[in-house]
């Protein structure tokens, strides 16, 4: 197992490199560049050229990539081409809020999806089942921005009980309650998504298990119903769910882009949007690397978790 993890980590290195190269090429192919964004009619060409030199954009593309790469090896992600802030610090500052938002949503979403999925499978075609399935469809199909704006309308404008944007009240003393209040609406939106998707997975996985012969055997042995469900059914039903949850993390990262825009949440998603819009190459590269690392790690963790919950799976090599 240990060897397997090491091997996977080693394979991850060329994958990451490939991702950064591809990202760099695509980014360079996109029209516009950071200097274009500074063009106002008055700016003379010589000033733009000076800016290009200052940002290192006058060098050939492969030299630019190489310079980025060698800095990366020294643990330096470079400076933002717009704000001159170190990219590493920018990303680090934004990571906390995003993890808070995603983590909370994932935990609550799963905490709703698993029990509700199990219940609705056990009582298939009941009112609860229909309600859960309908709710899950709603959760998936209502666009994030729409639900977000709807919540702002109800809770901020109409009831006036929740702040509509940001992570803390400016000039306030911050604190746990303040952040919690700001967290509620974005978390509701992301949770609706996570729960919506996963209720269906849990339900169908559970339905499949409930038809298995070994459950009939267990019942025939005279085991208590709760024991049959909890020990024999749920455990097996959750195995495929582990995979799905691993995939949830990259999806959440994507969903956060929209949500963070709507709620002005100071996280990675908002940074991603603004750096793409201003063609802030070094920040885009840093964010892309982060995203790639997260996807690869999430996959690895999923595979490890898979081996832990399912004794049939062994990574021998």
């Amino acid at each position, binding site marked *: 197992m240990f060897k397997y993890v090491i091997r996977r980590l080693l394979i991850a290195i060329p994958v990451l490199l490939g991702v950064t190269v591809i990202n760099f090429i695509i980014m360079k192919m996109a029209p516009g560049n950071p200097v274009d964004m500074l063009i106002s009619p008055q700016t003379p060409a010589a000033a733009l050229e000076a800016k290009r030199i200052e940002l290192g954009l006058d060098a050939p593309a492969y030299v630019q990539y190489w310079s980025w790469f060698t800095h990366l090896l020294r643990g330096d992600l470079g400076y933002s081409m717009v704000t001159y802030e170190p990219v590493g610090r920018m990303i680090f500052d934004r990571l906390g809020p995003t993890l808070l938002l995603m983590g909370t949503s994932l935990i609550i979403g799963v905490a709703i999806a698993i029990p509700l999925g199990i219940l609705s499978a056990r009582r298939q075609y009941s009112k609860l089942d229909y309600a859960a399935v309908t709710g899950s469809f709603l959760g998936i199909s209502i666009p994030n921005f729409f639900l977000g704006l709807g919540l702002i309308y109800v809770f901020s404008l109409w009831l006036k009980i929740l702040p*509509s944007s940001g992570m803390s009240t*400016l000039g306030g003393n911050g604190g746990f309650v303040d952040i919690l209040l700001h967290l509620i609406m974005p978390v509701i939106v992301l949770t609706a998504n996570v729960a919506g998707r996963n209720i269906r997975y849990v339900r169908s996985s559970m339905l499949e298990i409930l038809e298995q012969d070994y459950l009939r055997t267990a019942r025939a042995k005279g085991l208590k119903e709760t024991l049959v469900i909890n020990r024999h059914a749920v455990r097996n039903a959750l195995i495929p769910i582990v995979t799905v949850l691993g995939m949830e993390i990259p999806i959440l990262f994507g969903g956060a882009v929209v949500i963070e825009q709507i709620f002005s949440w100071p996280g990675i998603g908002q940074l991603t949007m603004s750096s793409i819009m201003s063609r802030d190459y070094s920040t885009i590269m840093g964010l892309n690397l982060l995203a790639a690392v997260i996807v690869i790690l999430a996959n690895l963790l999923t595979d490890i978790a898979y081996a832990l919950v399912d004794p049939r799976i062994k990574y021998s090599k």
Partner: protein
Amino acid sequence: MKSRFFSTKKFLAVTLILALGVLSACGKSNTGNTGGNGAASESGKKTVNIGVTYSPNTLNPLYPVGLVSTYVTGLLFQPLVDIDEDLTFKPMLADSIETADNKTFTIKLNENAKWTDGTPVTADDVIFTLKLMSNAKVASTYAYMFAILEGLDDTGYLPEGSEEISGVKKVDDHTLTMTTKAPTTLTIFQDTIGRYLLTVPQSALKDVAPENINKSEFMQKPTVTNGPFKLVEYSRDHFVQLEANKDYFKGAPKIEQLNFKVMQPTAISAQLQSGEIDMNIPSAGVIPIGDYDKIKGLKGLTTVEGPAIATQFMYINEKSVPDAKQRKAISYAINREMIVNNLLKGSGEAVSGFFTSYSPYLDASVKPDAYDPEKAKSLLQESGWDSGKTLTLTVLSGDSTLEQAANIMAENLKAAGVNVKIQMADLATLVDKIVKMEYDLGILTVSMTPVNPLPDVAYFLQTGNPNGYSNAKIDELLASLSAETDEAKIKQYYNEIQQIVAEDVPMPSIYATKALGAINDRVTGAKPKDFGMFINVNEWDVK
């Protein structure tokens, strides 16, 4: 069976209780937090929150990027003078800027002006700043503003090898003179050096190498400033939090905190209504036109309709539309009145030339092209327009009003016999296409400096412009303008340009919007406006 039912019920009950608990908890602790004057009462401080829709990209006074950066940075580092709504200049860091011969300008600094570390702001600081901005290694994109000064090259950079700017002399600690290469009007001097030289402290920056200055800690979070407010916290796409500088030389601000909150345009009206923001900056905290009526109807808010500044210009690539008749036909084909009356609901004006009614240089005798599809058709026929040709109209995405206006324009043009295909592009893509001339028609918003439109006009019309238009007479007029100091003559040259442009139609404008400003009545002394909004910020107060 019974136990299962029980567990369902229990589960639902627990969920409900949790949900209610969370909701009631926020209800309790949040009372008065968001409504009306929440922000002030909560921490006991007098706070004003301003909504903006663009992020303050940098707080670097050597070259603020974008409108919001310029406003915020100006609050930390005062310009020498600032332009007010009525297009007059108000003294800021400089008490006065005077000239007798339009070449030598004497700048007297306010003697009370102090850095937040207690030391006075001196002529040395001003000269130090000027040298930084004219250093090619700093690559300030504002350096060109200083190209009028003697001793600097045409880009505004200090030639390599020179240490001092020959046109700048210190007279005493609070007085300096600047000499220009050519005679310059006081207005232009104030509009360039006066507004864009944001003095930085020599004491804090003298040991930083120029090539590292943009990356320095100081430029990320300025600690020694001279404006009415000091920086508390800055989160680029999120907010800027400022607190009053009690020692501000024009008098301590009455409010204790000033926050800029970055948000989506649709959020402005919502947050004005909920009291989370007190006001917007008209052109930098854009309220979508669809929200105008709603905001005007809100109680406790005062709205101000600004002058028509932001103008939609249509770039026309002469390679695609070579004949002036065809360009005139395009201008005639567009129903500007309908766009202004129906889409903008009257909050704008129909324009086809370079200036709006706000400009002192508008030639009123040149009327905007009126909607005349028949004339457009006959002009196209005369010029032998190939009706099978399709033009691509590239439009900036994200501005919903512009997107709808572009659809109207495309329909208008089709009705007149010009096939148009709309293509949406983000700003970087659009600028790239225009600069490389890889477009047929392109629409871009331009907000011209009202008092000195020459750099903009020259860029759009001079030979080598991104329209591919060239006219020797125009080049000549532009050259005369750059050397003229007599206002009457300047006006006359601009009139001539407008008359030529009305015939050649190198780059027609379509409409100009009047940005809406809104302010909560609890704030006194302030008015949302695009120019000069913060000149009297130290006198703002909250009820």
